[in-house]
């Protein structure tokens, strides 16, 4: 039920919002095509929540345009083409899950079926339970059902798994997968790198109110951080390896040389040509966290790889987004 056929699911241009002296969102342009699953990634205070609040019509932008399937955010909410799971937003403790989702459905002009949303969100068996007696993960899934109930073409989720433990998170993404499998568009914000890598087609990296990288996960990583070639190279010194064409940095760890580069094919060829006894060659992409650290200028004091699955620390100069 697209409002305007052929319009992008989401189109944002020149978006700005300041709170007092803080530029929470400082000029954002973003187009999301139908069917894309996009992760909005960034540290706390990057402006993710403010951006999402404007996209869903909760906050009025200082400047810029937003169109959801060609319509204004409020029109999109009213017609049910956009489903939203806000970061804060609670359930009434005295009301059951079934009643809550039924209420949200009844607010639409043609009330959509409730059972399907409950089932998709995995809370059908909780329909008679009052919200006061739900776990944190269950509450989030109920709120997911509320976002799903209108059968939206664009789903916007603001840090959907922030309050969940590992098991709940995995279960949540399983329900999400079922939804995106039907060709719907999803925009979700997260500060979990592994979620962006695992569930998104495309990553939009934000820092200090701006988009600092935007593209498919592998492309973003290649663009900003390149690749690594690691190998055991008997007899070679780090200085020798550093002279290989295309190599930007060399680290030697536990007898293995790690070569950073952009074109790993070239480096592998040259490596084997000059050092025929090189063995255990591995080519890998740098983790998204490395890309992130480089882009946001956070001091790279943390060893690579240890950040996966843990929230990124906000850069010292970034301030918490006001709401």
């Amino acid at each position: 039920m697209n409002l305007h056929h052929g319009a992008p699911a989401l189109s944002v241009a020149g978006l700005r919002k300041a709170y007092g002296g803080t530029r929470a969102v400082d000029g954002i342009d973003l187009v999301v095509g139908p069917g894309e699953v996009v992760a909005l990634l960034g540290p706390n205070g990057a402006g993710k929540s403010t951006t999402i609040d404007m996209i869903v019509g909760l906050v009025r932008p200082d400047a810029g345009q937003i169109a959801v399937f060609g319509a204004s955010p409020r029109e999109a909410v009213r017609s049910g083409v956009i489903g939203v799971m806000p970061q804060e937003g609670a359930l009434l403790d005295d009301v059951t899950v079934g009643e809550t989702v039924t209420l949200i459905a009844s607010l639409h002009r043609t009330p959509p079926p409730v059972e399907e949303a409950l089932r998709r969100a995995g809370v059908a068996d909780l329909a008679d339970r009052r919200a006061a007696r739900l776990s944190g993960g269950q509450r989030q899934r109920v709120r997911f059902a509320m976002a799903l109930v209108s059968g939206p073409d664009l789903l916007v989720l603001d840090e959907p798994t922030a309050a969940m433990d590992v098991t709940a998170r995995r279960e949540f993404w399983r329900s999400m997968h079922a939804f995106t499998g039907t060709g719907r568009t999803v925009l979700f914000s997260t500060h979990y790198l592994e979620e962006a890598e695992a569930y998104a087609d495309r990553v939009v990296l934000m820092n200090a109110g701006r988009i600092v990288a935007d593209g498919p996960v592998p492309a973003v990583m290649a663009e900003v951080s390149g690749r690594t070639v690691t190998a055991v190279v008997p007899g070679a010194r780090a200085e020798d390896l550093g002279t290989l064409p295309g190599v930007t940095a060399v680290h030697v760890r536990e007898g293995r040389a790690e070569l950073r580069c952009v074109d790993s094919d070239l480096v592998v060829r040259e490596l084997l040509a000059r050092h025929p006894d090189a063995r255990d060659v591995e080519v890998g992409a740098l983790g998204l966290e490395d890309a992130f650290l480089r882009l946001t200028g956070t001091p790279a004091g943390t060893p690579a790889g240890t950040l996966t699955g843990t929230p990124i620390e906000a850069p010292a100069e970034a301030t918490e987004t006001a709401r």
Partner: protein
Amino acid sequence: MTGYLAFEIRRTLRDAKFLLFAVALPVGLYLLMADRFADRGAPASYVMGGVAAFGAMKAALDTGARTAVERDIGWQRQLRLTPLSGGGYLLAKGSVAMVVALPPVAGVSLVAALAGGVHLSPGGWVSAVLGVWAGTVPFALLGLLIGQLATARNLQAYQGAVVLLLSFVGGLFIPVSTFPRALATVARVLPSYWLAQVGHATTLGGDTWRAALVLTSYALVLGAAVAVRYRHGTAQA
């Protein structure tokens, strides 16, 4: 809007404790005070008017003010992501406050008729009950306004002060005719004084038209304040 209103009414009717308390408090007060001021020109019917006004006013105020809790937990934010408009939400909440305001008036009147020795014609009863009930509209709106200004934490303090001021200074319990002159002047500014006038009018006579005019003015001003405050609140949020 009707879907939301039905939901809210169901929710309220399920809260038996709140409803029971809303009726029991003014009824209890009536039974305590019915004969207290008889020798000072306040017969049982006078007490009935004041206490019924108190019950309706408190129920409406409390219901409206509870929206502060819903705002704090983020329920209002959640609703703004649905087709329900801000006006629809406020209208539903105000309507629920009015639904809750009726049982206390009816309860006090019933007890007064059965046990309290107040005698009115059937038409007199209808206008006594409906008059006070209709006059509660500004208090439902005042409750909504408090709900938008207070937080869940300081709500009780706000609410207690407002109810105390309106009921005692407004003369719902003690006849204003016994007040010192300055206090009596303050009383006449309060909407609760005029609501009590409506309550007393059927038995003692009184300027119902003037009371209706004052209460309507209050309703318009408070209604505008609620609308402005809500729009301001959503723009900021």
